């Protein structure tokens, strides 16, 4: 699967789960895995760090 932003190849591990974040190795864009069915993976733009994020 390629990065929707810069078209670089995204490395999505086979054991990645829905909800995990993958980052583009070239442009740095973050994507969240929204659906995964075997090798079919759907991505959505990951949320950016919010004011209330953390521990």
């Amino acid at each position, binding site marked *: 699967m390629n990065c929707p932003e810069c078209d670089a190849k995204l490395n999505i591990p086979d054991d990645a789960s829905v909800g995990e974040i993958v980052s583009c190795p070239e442009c740095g864009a973050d994507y969240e895995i929204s659906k995964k069915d075997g090798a079919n993976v759907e991505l959505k733009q990951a949320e950016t760090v919010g004011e*209330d994020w953390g*521990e």
Partner: protein
Amino acid sequence: MSKVCIVFDRLRTEEKMLHKEASELGHDAVLLDAKITQINTDSNREDYDFGDVVLERCVSYFRGLHFTSSLEFLNVPVLNKFEVANICGNKMFMTLLLKKNNIPTPKTYFSFSSDSAAENLEKVGFPLVIKPVIGSWGRGVMPLKDKDTMEAVFEIRDITDSPHDRIYYLQELIKRPPRDIRVITVGDEPIAAMYRKSSGGFKTNVALGAEPEICEITKEMEDLAVKSSKAMGGGILGIDMMEDEDKGLIVHEVNNTVEFKGLAKVAQRNIPKEMIEFAINHVRK
């Protein structure tokens, strides 16, 4: 066999570790994304797959807090409880509760407008550390060393004027070694601790690059951690302490959705396993 539900909004290493440990302990474990879960006032517990107990692990504090209130509405046991999350998520509420329970904590000043905070700071004297009442990972934590810095910071707050910007939380700057101590408590029991060394500035947040190093839990640390956990209402917490050159150990923060992936690599006890076992036992009581 019990069923544990781990509620997340961003699946991090910690949530995956908890899921793995729950499975390895022979429990049924589910991961649930809070962002796609819908609840209404007619909802029932049976409508969802929350299992016997929920570990609320959202990275967004407000999302996690409000999700927790929904779970408690549905009578689903959740860790941490709403009241604990509510207090620990707000530095002012937390500090007041620490002090109320005679737990040594830095002297902290509260003002409710920039003018009042400026008047107090000039009276008390520089430096003081300003911290947002809501927020984490050291964001917005700044030492106010002189009047120019204070005026710049306060002016920015007056311009942004978010509700929490009107609450001024100013704390004494503690003389200490360039590190602090994080103790993880599970059910009022300290299970692991680490030193978090500053990477140069005065902040010691691991999220900012502070180097974690295993710390042996002394009797004093244990007593303070237990007392702090009980004061907040228990559950799974991260107690932060500083070594004040004059006063000894002081507790400056108690964290609600504790991060532990760094400490888990070096701790003697299995942190996610302890958390799962505590959660299961919590509902068996």
